[in-house]
């Protein structure tokens, strides 16, 4: 399919996406290192628990790949708003005047990219967890749970990339879209969690945590979250709703 090939060529001919991908790997690695070396040291002093001996805590180290989600969101935002910023959207819709195949192709390409980056980020956190935990006293790494985390991060990152695209398509202005995405992830979403204990499970961040079996994010326990399948449904719901609004707007809007 032509629109799909064109989207892939776009992705392979610019660098920004790949720098963000590299940044996501580095961020995952950083989080694993913090969870293995830094957090337990402080925690032991505070309440005398040996965190590394808790199975949930070890799981959260493997699931640290999820922390890179913000980079995946940005890849989606920048991938779409770049078309408006550089006004390549005109050429895109001239070549494919029926717009919905273009939007579907973009969603497919970014969804697959997100899933692939999910695999690599998982590989980083899993390998680094094994490496850094070796020689320490720690709860065993649950490999069947690790498999579920891999599936979770693939689905989660595919959806984050698509959510980023949808936000980008609605706002079009690149700087505004990046700022809004970051403010949401770093400020609004965590604050909502602080003020309303029922909120996280219904928000994208909490839904992502639940499909990653991530129990130690921001001091929250899994009890606050939906089961993994519920989290998956919430994420898919966000993607469908935001995606449909973004697509509906983009299909109708004048390109000037």
């Amino acid at each position, binding site marked *: 399919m*032509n*629109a799909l*090939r*064109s989207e*892939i*060529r*776009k992705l392979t*001919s*610019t*660098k*920004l996406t790949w720098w963000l991908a590299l940044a996501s790997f580095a961020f995952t690695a950083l989080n694993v290192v913090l969870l293995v070396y830094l957090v337990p040291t402080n925690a032991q002093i505070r309440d005398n628990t040996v965190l590394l001996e808790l199975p949930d805590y070890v799981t959260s180290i493997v699931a640290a790949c999820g922390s890179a989600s913000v980079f995946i969101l940005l890849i989606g935002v920048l991938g779409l708003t*770049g078309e408006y910023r*550089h*006004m*390549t959207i*005109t*050429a*895109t*819709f*001239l*070549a*494919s*005047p*029926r717009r919905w195949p273009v939007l579907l192709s973009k969603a497919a390409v970014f969804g697959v990219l997100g899933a692939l980056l999910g695999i690599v980020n998982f590989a980083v956190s899993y390998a680094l967890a094994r490496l850094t935990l070796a020689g320490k006293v720690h709860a065993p790494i649950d490999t069947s749970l690790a498999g579920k985390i891999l599936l979770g991060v693939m689905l989660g990152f595919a959806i984050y990339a698509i959510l980023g695209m949808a936000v980008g398509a609605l706002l079009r202005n690149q700087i505004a879209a990046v700022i809004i995405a970051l403010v949401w992830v770093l400020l609004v979403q965590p604050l909502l969690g602080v003020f309303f204990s029922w909120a996280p499970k219904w928000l994208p961040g909490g839904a992502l945590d639940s499909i990653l079996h991530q129990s130690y994010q921001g001091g929250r326990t899994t009890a606050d979250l939906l089961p993994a399948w519920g989290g998956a449904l919430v994420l898919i719901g966000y993607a469908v709703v935001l995606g449909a609004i973004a697509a509906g707007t983009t299909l*109708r809007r*004048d*390109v*000037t």
Partner: protein
Amino acid sequence: MSSHVAIEVRGLNKTFGSRKPVRAVRDLSFSVAPGKVTGFLGPNGSGKTTTLRTVLGLVRPTSGDALIQGQHYSQLAHPQRVVGAALEASGVHPGRTAQAHLQVLCAAGGIPYDRVPAVLEEVGLTEAASRKVGGFSLGMRQRLALAGALLGDPAILVLDEPANGLDPEGIAWLRHTLRNLAAEGKAVLISSHVLSEVQLTVDDVVIISKGALVTQCPLAELSAGPRQVLVRSADDPSLARAINEESGNAASPAPGGGLLVTGADSAAIGRIALTRQIPLIELREHSADLESVFLELTHAEVSA
């Protein structure tokens, strides 16, 4: 395949916005024929880009129609092979090389990648093929945009202000290229806000002002005002009287000196000067200045 009319715009209206509506195009109708270069002319903000974008399916008309070989742009199975377009506000990602940019367009239209070196050659950008577009001059960008339009070897070309940013050499190159394309039988529609820029390139003109049609005609008809002769002599006042007595034509002082005679030919005036024995200094046919005709036409008040 080449139907009689390449592009037909019929009763086109476009109003942007609803709270503070801007009527960008008003009841506009014109057509573009194959084998010719048609100039789409009007001052800045007169609705040229909006009209072209409507023709290309990027802007939805408020009412009216814009058809390409009788079809809407969005109905074309292989749009790039029918219409090649280079629009004013159409960009290129600065991080992409010229080649990669054209490959993206090829992929979208199912056009083989080997068209890329061919069109780069055609616009003289072969050397710059693997350079990033971010470092291109305005003139190089215009050439790249034209290369993109030529990728599908289309029968129709739509170019929005293609001469903008070109130096005189570039404009000459553009003229040569577009004349050749028209000679191949293609329909070429180019917009401009300065007639003189495209005066030597176009066969026909479509002139708009404030979104409405002023005139559509061959360029030659635009310049064919009443026939005038410019004459300078040793004694202009006597010659003016003589011309008036002998031929009945009016002779009025010309702005730069001499007389402008309307309705007579230069041979007749030469004979009159000879019989009255007034020495002539200069005698030539006076052609109306196209640019001032254009300005006059586009500044005339258009009734809504």
